[in-house]
């Protein structure tokens, strides 16, 4: 009875979380939903006489793999949300058809199968005195070769990850002297104004006032400003609200520190290298992740050209409007 309740609760939770994983716009939510599913499954493992797996599930999956996911998410840019506009024609429809068909087929098949009561693992486990020793016996006897091969796989994976993610330094490391020189050559020799300077709020998303009373757009992080704009959490003061909007849209000033770094790192011949991962930059920077229309769809290009051509043909009309 207890197992039935556990199952139904966790089944509903895990299915809803899985759906949430698929349908949430933001990758971070997806990751969290996946965590929920994994935890639910861990409990289900525990219920099904697999305590060791349940623990491993929590430690390896929820602990390590999920953290890795989140880490990479943060690395490649957490501030963007995935566009849900489908660009491959029919892909979504057929994906749903295939998924539903697959699920229904499997479910019907499983439902039709005559399955007796579970044999239970107590018999298999008692000889060794518990689940973990029993598993250990199997792993280190019958599956020891696979186990060793797996260790080689893990080592290889670690090395591979290092090789793949490694980046050779193409320019000498910027010294303090270089950084200082770049800062004085740049727009802001002084440190950027913190949100606390002449703060009118104690929140980090509210811009600071400069000594002359003007609003400093430099004092707000662009990511945070964008969250405010998207969430509609703008202050009543129109000047502050406008400043936040400017920051969010990237038209106003942004935090200058990246520019400083950029100026230092921008050696001739390696401009692309200068764009650091995860460093919020100018407006063009974000499109890599959100990219609503980046897809080079063959159908879109002619349209653009058409529009441009039309505009060129009727410049007067356009101006008249």
């Amino acid at each position, binding site marked *: 009875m207890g*197992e039935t309740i556990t199952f139904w609760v966790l089944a509903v939770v895990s299915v809803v979380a*899985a759906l949430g*994983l698929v349908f949430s716009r933001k990758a971070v939510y997806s*990751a969290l939903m996946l965590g929920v599913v994994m935890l639910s*499954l861990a409990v289900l493992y525990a219920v099904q006489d697999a305590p060791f*797996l349940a623990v491993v599930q929590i430690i390896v999956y929820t602990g390590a793999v999920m953290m890795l996911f989140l880490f990479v998410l943060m690395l490649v840019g957490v501030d963007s949300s995935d566009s849900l506009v489908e660009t491959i024609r029919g892909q979504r429809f057929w994906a749903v058809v295939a998924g539903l068909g697959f699920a229904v087929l499997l479910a019907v098949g499983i*439902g039709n199968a005559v399955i007796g009561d579970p044999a239970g693992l107590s018999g298999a486990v008692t000889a060794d005195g518990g689940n973990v020793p029993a598993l250990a016996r199997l792993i280190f006897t019958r599956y020891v070769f696979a186990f060793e091969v797996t260790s080689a796989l893990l080592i290889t994976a670690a090395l591979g990850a290092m090789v793949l993610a490694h980046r050779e330094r193409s320019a000498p490391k910027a010294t303090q002297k270089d950084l200082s020189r770049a800062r004085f050559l740049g727009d802001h020799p002084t440190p950027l104004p913190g949100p606390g300077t002449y703060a009118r709020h104690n929140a980090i998303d509210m811009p600071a006032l400069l000594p002359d009373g003007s609003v400093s757009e430099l004092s707000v992080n662009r990511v945070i400003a964008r969250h405010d704009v998207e969430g509609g959490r703008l202050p009543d003061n129109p000047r502050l609200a406008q400043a936040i909007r400017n920051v969010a849209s990237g038209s106003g000033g942004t935090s200058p520190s990246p520019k400083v770094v950029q100026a230092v790192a921008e050696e001739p011949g390696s401009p692309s290298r200068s764009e650091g991962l995860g460093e919020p930059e100018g407006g063009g920077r974000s499109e890599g992740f959100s990219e609503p229309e980046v897809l080079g769809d063959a159908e879109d290009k002619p349209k653009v050209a058409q529009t441009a051509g039309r505009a060129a043909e009727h410049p007067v009309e356009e101006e008249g409007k």
Partner: protein
Amino acid sequence: MTTHYLVLSALLFAIGGVGVLVRRNAIVVFMCVELMLNACNLAFVTFARQHGNLEGQIIAFFVMIVAAAEVVVGLAIIVTIFRTRRSASVDDANLLKY
């Protein structure tokens, strides 16, 4: 009960599959793959109990290890691609075509 577990496993698997098909963010796609693997693991564990045999749990264990390795390499690849192409969309990497 076994039937329920298996149906749940199939459901999760299908959801993960649909996710792989409809999402474009490579990381989310990866998560969906993980979801599918987890669904399989659930089936393995269920069958282990059904048959009173620990082999299923062993397989699930190995699946976890392989999945961990896969995630490590996969994410490294994503990072590398993102670094050069400024994009984590699976649709952007479509140069290998007709």
